[in-house]
């Protein structure tokens, strides 16, 4: 499966308060959370995102609070996947658990806002159409790939229990 979208670029240490401020954590609705995604640091972000667009960031994306509302709001905003140089661990496992595709590559700095990207979900290959470049992302460790393949943690558990 190939994901296609335009890049929205963010810096290092984007925390979960940036992604979704605590004052909005009075709901679990993805669309409502999506409308407020990144509001603190990029007030017009949610309005600018077209369905399928991609967040590209630096190191330690998603640090801070454990709120799963963060990846939920990113999905709710219409973002198809997140590419970063590295992810904070709770955000990383939350994304895998809820089925938000994430890719780690040290070439994330190369991508600019507005670049057209194509991401091969299975191969983990990122094509930068605008710059005519190809980046390789880190493969998931075996166990995590099982959860990704199952479509999230709850589906994996169900399989395991059967």
């Amino acid at each position, binding site marked *: 499966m190939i994901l296609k979208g335009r890049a929205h670029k963010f810096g290092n*240490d984007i*925390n979960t*308060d*940036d992604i979704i*401020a*605590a*004052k909005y*954590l*009075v*709901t*679990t609705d993805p669309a409502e959370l999506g409308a407020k995604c990144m509001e*603190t*640091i990029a007030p017009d972000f949610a309005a600018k995102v077209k369905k399928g667009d991609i967040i590209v960031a630096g*190191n*330690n994306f998603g*640090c*801070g*609070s*454990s*709120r*799963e*509302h963060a990846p*939920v709001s990113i999905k709710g905003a219409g973002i198809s996947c997140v590419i970063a140089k*590295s992810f*904070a*661990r*709770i955000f990383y*496992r*939350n994304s895998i*658990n*809820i089925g938000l595709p994430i890719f780690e590559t040290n070439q994330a700095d190369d991508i600019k806002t507005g670049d057209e990207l194509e991401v091969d979900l299975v191969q983990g290959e990122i094509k930068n159409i605008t710059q005519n470049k190809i980046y390789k992302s880190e493969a998931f*460790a*075996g*166990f*995590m790939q099982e*959860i990704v393949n199952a479509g*999230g*943690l*709850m589906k994996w*558990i*169900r399989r*395991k*229990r059967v």
Partner: protein
Amino acid sequence: MNYTITEKILMSHTPEKKEIHPGEFIWAKIDLALANDITAPLAIEEFKKAGAKKVFDKNKIALVADHFTPAKDSRSANQAKMLFDFAKEHSIKNCFDVGRMGVEHALLPELGLVAPGDLVVGADSHTCTYGALGVFSTGMGSTDIAASWITGRVWLRAPQTIKFVYKGKLTKWASGKDLILHTIGDIGVDGALYKAMEFTGPVIDKLDMDSRLAMCNMAIEAGGKSGIIAPDGISKLKSDKNAEYSEIKEYDISKMEPQVACPHLPSNVKPVSQLKNIKVDQVIIGSCTNGRISDLRVAAKVLKGKKVTSSARTVIIPATQNIMKQAIKEGLVDIFVKSGCAVSTPSCGPCLGGHCGILADGETAIATTNRNFLGRMGSPKSFVYLSNPAVAAASAIKGRIAHPEEI
């Protein structure tokens, strides 16, 4: 094989494994899984969506309505109610509402619900606090917690450990909070990413439990998976002499002043004496980091017989109902109220910009909390400095960031 304390705890919870190596995935048994009024609603929804009918063990789940409570609005009230309804349906006795409630990471150790050698997971990033008691504990998301409520297990990647050794003697007004701020200032907000942080050395051996809890509490602020301190006394639970560490860091802290983290990252740390020209509009003493009785005692010591400035508001939030009772008994609340502070019922409240002290545009706070991200305590145009309770109390008197020695 030689193992770290973290590896030993993980191994004892994974009966299928004879040995564990860092990087390895395990499917570990849990002793307790907690969630709060923000994270439990998502977990409860996932639990129901999965078609689960029963929790794996009603005694190994804790639900604490502490973040937006006493409910700040009707939507928060509805979220808190989901916890109470779920607890009733599944006969979960460790469910806490206003009056018995406390900030979760102060409450659970106080009630003895976490014990040395346990494996505890929580849908809250500061679950790492219990490492102070020799617990392996780590924060996760709501779906992880929902899965653990069904299966009694979680998936974990066994972490590498960084060993931190603290030598020397703490200066008068420095505490566990200052040690951890100093450490985060050194290694950065992702300096311990995915790793266990093991705190050791002569300074830790002498450190009181509340200070140890404050240290482990902020392991997540360095990206750590967990923080841990080997239990004292007769327990043999500790790292082997030849255990493998990914790194060993040593600090001589004999000259360390109280530390302050400046906006907008917990790693932006400076000694308090360099910040004396920073005016404050609000002072918060409380939270899962520094809302415990010894924190209130040190704040009262600074505030006794003094008045807080009229140019700032000072809110003191004992972390649990029992801490509140103790603070009343010891006369601390009397000292706070007479000095012009507001004393609130337990809540996470302002730490995450929930309620009980939200900042306006352009305002600056000094707080004993754990995060100073942009907009964390309210307006995206506000500023948060993090310190220990003595520095916060001194700043409340002076109306600017101050060293307790100045009082």
